[in-house]
C-alpha cells in the first residue's frame, strides 16, 4: 500500500520542523516551554521549571493543584506515588467532607484529586515508556526496502534504511549498536517526553504498514526474511 508508507516518518518530521521553525499557529511550538516539575521543599511540594524526577507535567495549573494534594502525603505514600500513593486516603477524606456537608472544602479537594490522578497517570506512563525498547519497521521509499526505527529507553536512537538482501543485516547490527546505551536516570526534558509520547502512540495503535518488533536481532531478522527483505 504505497499510499500509507511513512506515517511515522511524517510524524517525526513534523515534530522536528515545529521545533526548528516554531510556527505561530502550532500549539506544540509553545508546549515545549510548558513542561514543569514537582519538587519537594520542606514538607510541601512546589512547581518548578528545573527538571526533576516528578515531571515533566504539561499544565502548570494541574501541577500546582497536584502539589497541594501532595502536601499532606507521608513518606510511604510518596514512595508508592506511581501506584496511587495518597489517592485512596484523599478519596476517603473527600467522602467524609461530603458527608459532613462541607461542600466547598470537598470541591477544592476534588479538583486537587483530579489533578493528582492526571499527574500520576502521566508519570506512570512516562516511567513505562522509559523502559520501552523496540524496533519499528515501515516500508521504505524504494520498492523492496524497509526503514527501521531503533527505539531504546523510549527514544529513537537510530533510523536505518534496510536494503533488500544481506545488506539489511549490516544495517540491523549498526542500528542495534546505537541502542546499547547506559541506563539513564536523568530527569526527562519536555522535548524527550514529547518524543516518547509520539512513539508510544504508534506502538499502541500501529498503522497497518508498521511492524512493532522487540529489540532482538533474531526477531527482527526473521521479520525481514518473512517480508522478503533479506
Amino acid at each position, binding site marked *: 500500500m504505497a*499510499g500509507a*508508507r*511513512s*506515517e511515522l516518518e511524517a510524524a517525526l*518530521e513534523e515534530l522536528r520542523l515545529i521545533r526548528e521553525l516554531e510556527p*505561530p499557529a502550532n500549539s506544540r511550538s509553545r508546549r515545549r516551554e510548558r513542561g514543569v516539575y514537582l519538587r519537594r521543599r520542606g514538607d510541601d511540594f512546589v512547581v518548578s521549571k528545573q527538571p526533576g524526577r516528578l515531571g515533566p507535567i504539561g499544565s502548570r495549573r494541574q501541577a500546582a493543584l497536584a502539589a497541594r494534594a501532595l502536601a499532606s502525603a507521608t513518606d510511604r505514600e510518596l514512595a508508592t506515588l506511581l501506584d496511587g500513593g495518597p489517592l485512596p486516603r484523599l478519596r476517603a477524606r473527600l467522602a467524609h467532607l461530603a458527608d459532613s456537608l462541607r461542600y466547598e472544602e470537598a470541591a477544592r479537594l476534588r479538583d486537587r484529586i483530579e489533578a493528582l490522578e492526571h499527574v500520576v497517570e502521566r508519570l506512570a506512563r512516562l516511567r513505562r515508556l522509559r523502559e520501552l525498547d523496540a524496533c519499528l519497521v515501515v516500508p521504505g*521509499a524504494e520498492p523492496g526496502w524497509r526503514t527501521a526505527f531503533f527505539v531504546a529507553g523510549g527514544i529513537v536512537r537510530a533510523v536505518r534504511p534496510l536494503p533488500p538482501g544481506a545488506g539489511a543485516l549490516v544495517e540491523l547490527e549498526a542500528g542495534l549498536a546505537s541502542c546499547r546505551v547506559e541506563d539513564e536516570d536523568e530527569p526527562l526534558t519536555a522535548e524527550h517526553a514529547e518524543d516518547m509520547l509520539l512513539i508510544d502512540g504508534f506502538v499502541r495503535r500501529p498503522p497497518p504498514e508498521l511492524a512493532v518488533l522487540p529489540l532482538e536481532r533474531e526477531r527482527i531478522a526473521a521479520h525481514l526474511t518473512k517480508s522478503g527483505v533479506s
Partner: protein
Amino acid sequence: MFALLWAVQLALDSLDRLVDTLEERGPLTAVEAARSLFATPSISEGLASSLLGELTAGDSRVACFGGSVALAGQQSDPSLDEAEFVVFDLETTGLSPARDRICELGAVRVRGLELVDSFQSLVNPGVALPEPVARLTGLQQEELRAAPPAAAVVRQFLAFAGDALLVAHNAKFDQRFLEQHLVALYGRRLSEPPLCTAALARRLLEGRLRRVGLASLADFFGVPTAPCHRALPDAEATAQVLVRLIGLSQELGAHRLSELRALAAPRKRRVYDKRALARGAPARPGVYLFHDRYGQVLYVGRSRDLRARLRSYFRSERQRPSVEAALLALDRIEWRVLGPSSRPRSRSCA
C-alpha cells in the same frame, strides 16, 4: 430555520466540489458530474440534468447547457478606479422575504468613484403598509397604491443596473427580497451576490468602529447624505460610504474589483478561494507547511493523505482560531512527501 441553513450550506459545498472537479477535469457530461457529486453509480441523464440545473442556478462560476456542465468564462476584473457599481436599497413592508413585500427601490450608479446617475421608484406592495413601517419611512399608503407593481420596477431596475456590480448595505437582506422577484420573473437568482458594504466595513474598520450600521458609517466618514430609511437617500449614503471604503481598501493594497470582493467576502469564501494552493498535493503521507506572503512558516502539519488533508482546510468547517488565522494569511503551501526520493513541492498564490 436550521434545515434551510443546512440545505443552503449543502448546496454551496456541492457547488464548491463541482467547481473543483471541473477545474481539474474540464467540462463534464451531466451524468459524469452528478455521479462525482452525489456518489451514485447510476443516474439517468434527465435526473442528472435536473439536479445540476437546480444546484447551479444562480452561480456564475458554472454553466449548464444541454447535457453538459462547464466552468463559465472568466469575468472581467477592472481596476477599482474604473469599475462600475450600482448601489441599491430597498424599503419593505417587513423583514421576511417570504411574507413581506418591497415598497420602494432606490439605486445610485458609481463610475470612476463618482456618483453619476440614480434610479428611484415607489412600489405598490399589494398589501397594507404596516403602521410602524409608515412611521419609520414616512411612506403613505395612498402614494404606494398609485405606484407600479414590483415586477415592473424590478425590470426597470435591472435595465438601469446593466452589467455593473450590485452593492448594498447588509446585502443579504436586499438580495433575498430582490431574488424573490427574479425567480418569479426569470426563474433565476442573481449571478453573483451583491457586494456588502457592512461586511467590507467590518473588515476594513476592525478595531476602529464597533457598529457598522449605515448611520454609524455615514457619521464616521462624515458623508454629505444622511440615511433616513428611504431608498434613494440610503442608497446615496451607501454609495458615499462605498467610495470611502474603496479608498481604505486601496491603502491596503487592493487595486482590482476581485480584491475588493475578497475583502468583503465571508470567511468561508475567503478561505475557499485559496483552495487552488492545495492542488497537486499527492494522496501520500507527508508533512506540509503553510507560508505567508513574506515566506514565514505559519503552521506545520502532517497527514497520511496530504491531498485529502489539505483540501479539508478549504471546506466549510472552522478550524481552531490559530489555524484559522494562518489560513487567512496563507500565501503558499509547501509539502514534503516522506522518503529519500521525494523533493519539497509547493504552490503559491502568485
